[in-house]
């Protein structure tokens, strides 16, 4: 996997809605090493920031530059939404969908889909069932696998396990760890400190739409620079 996307340069990026600033201005440099966790309480703007980076939220100011051409950049990324989007099809058809859309012939696409399904533990008996009847954890796993099947360079994950139970969360994190080890870059958001500690190589702390701090994980957890970040780490309610 050629690392063509990074380094990512974000300068003065800002997004508004109905006149009110949601996120920004944000200045950020990401070198794409390992997993970057965007951390912050609910309402901080984590989802919006991720969407801005991926290019599905409009920038009203500033710029976001990948190392390569913007058109190629989008194709090398995938996004897993907080509420997983299930196509009204079977599980295996959901998995095969991105491949089919990019021209992979049907048989090959279905084979690869089944292969991946096996790898992440989506059982044989589930494959032909409608994706919409899966449990929350299974849906999220499916969405994640559907993202990974495209073999992207970078995967965005918006609160991937916020509505999942412990077991499902562990399964998701296992998949993420495996992928990260295989070289896929991850940018994920979470308000779960424990998850951040477990997975992060880099931390971006976001509060009220502003980036308070961006640092390697050990550095951040050892001593956050801002009082709000410290309060958050202590488990206080931060506004």
């Amino acid at each position, binding site marked *: 996997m050629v690392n063509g996307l990074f380094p990512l340069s974000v300068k003065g990026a800002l997004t508004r809605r109905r006149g009110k600033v949601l996120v920004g201005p944000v200045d950020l440099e990401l070198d794409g090493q390992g997993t970057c966790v965007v951390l912050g309480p609910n309402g901080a703007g984590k989802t919006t920031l991720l969407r801005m980076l991926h290019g599905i939220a409009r920038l009203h100011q500033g710029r976001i530059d990948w190392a390569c051409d913007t058109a190629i950049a*989008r194709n090398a*990324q995938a996004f897993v939404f907080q509420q997983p989007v299930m196509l*009204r099809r079977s599980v295996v058809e959901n998995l095969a969908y991105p491949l089919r859309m990019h021209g992979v012939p049907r048989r090959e696409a279905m084979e690869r889909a089944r292969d991946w399904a096996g790898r992440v533990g989506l059982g044989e008996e589930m494959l032909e069932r409608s994706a919409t*009847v899966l449990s929350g954890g299974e849906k999220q796993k499916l969405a994640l696998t559907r993202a990974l099947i495209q073999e992207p360079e970078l995967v965005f994950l918006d609160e991937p396990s916020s509505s999942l139970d412990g077991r499902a969360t562990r399964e998701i994190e296992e998949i993420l760890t495996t992928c990260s080890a295989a070289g896929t870059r991850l940018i994920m958001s979470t308000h779960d400190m424990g998850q951040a500690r477990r997975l992060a190589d880099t931390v971006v702390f976001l509060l009220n739409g502003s980036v308070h701090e961006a640092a390697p994980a050990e550095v951040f957890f050892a001593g956050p620079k801002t009082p709000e970040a410290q309060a958050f780490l202590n488990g206080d309610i931060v506004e």
Partner: protein
Amino acid sequence: MVDLWQGLSQAFWLVITADAELVEIAMRSLRITLSALVLACLIAMPLAALLAIRRFRFRRTVIAVLNTLMGLPPVVVGLMVYVLLSRSGPLGALGLLFTPTAMIMAQMIIIVPLIASIAHQSLRDLWHDYHDLLISMNVSQTQKVATLLWDARRALLTAALAGFGRGIGEVGAIMIVGGNIDNVTRVLTTAIALETGKGQFALALALGFVLIALALAVNLAIHGLSRTERDGRW
């Protein structure tokens, strides 16, 4: 009440003996409405999908107009098509007036807004769900339309069947542009109108019952073909 029973028994008798004239007009009814339906779907459904996906300035107006057109009186459509196809009219040279083709055209105009409106509503809801994912995946416009149409196929089927119902029972437009010519453009509904006008109520009712049975058969066939209600998930 007597007419109703007479009508039922006459209908039964006509069907059992496969009355030649009945078969002819029933087949013509089906042919015209099904042709109009297929053509209308080919126009209305992609139109509905595009309307759901694209944001443009007059979208709300277009949707409102489409909804209004659903209530267009068929006889008015018939008159307009007549004026177009009349020998004295712009398309007169085509010689289409008083042919089944003219009837198909008129029915198509009537059912396209209906199918498009109903389809659009479901496609819009579905697009609301799919929007982020498909954009993130960089799917092309054509692929978006195709994905929506395929995944919404159950709802689209309902829209199509609504269109079929409207078409098979329609009489105003096809009476004017078809002329109800015996052996050429007479169908079940125009025959019913004719017999009613002659005071032959029992026969008219009989034809009506046949029409209802025919429509039911088509609906069941389409449901059978599309294997709905199989996994308990519609």
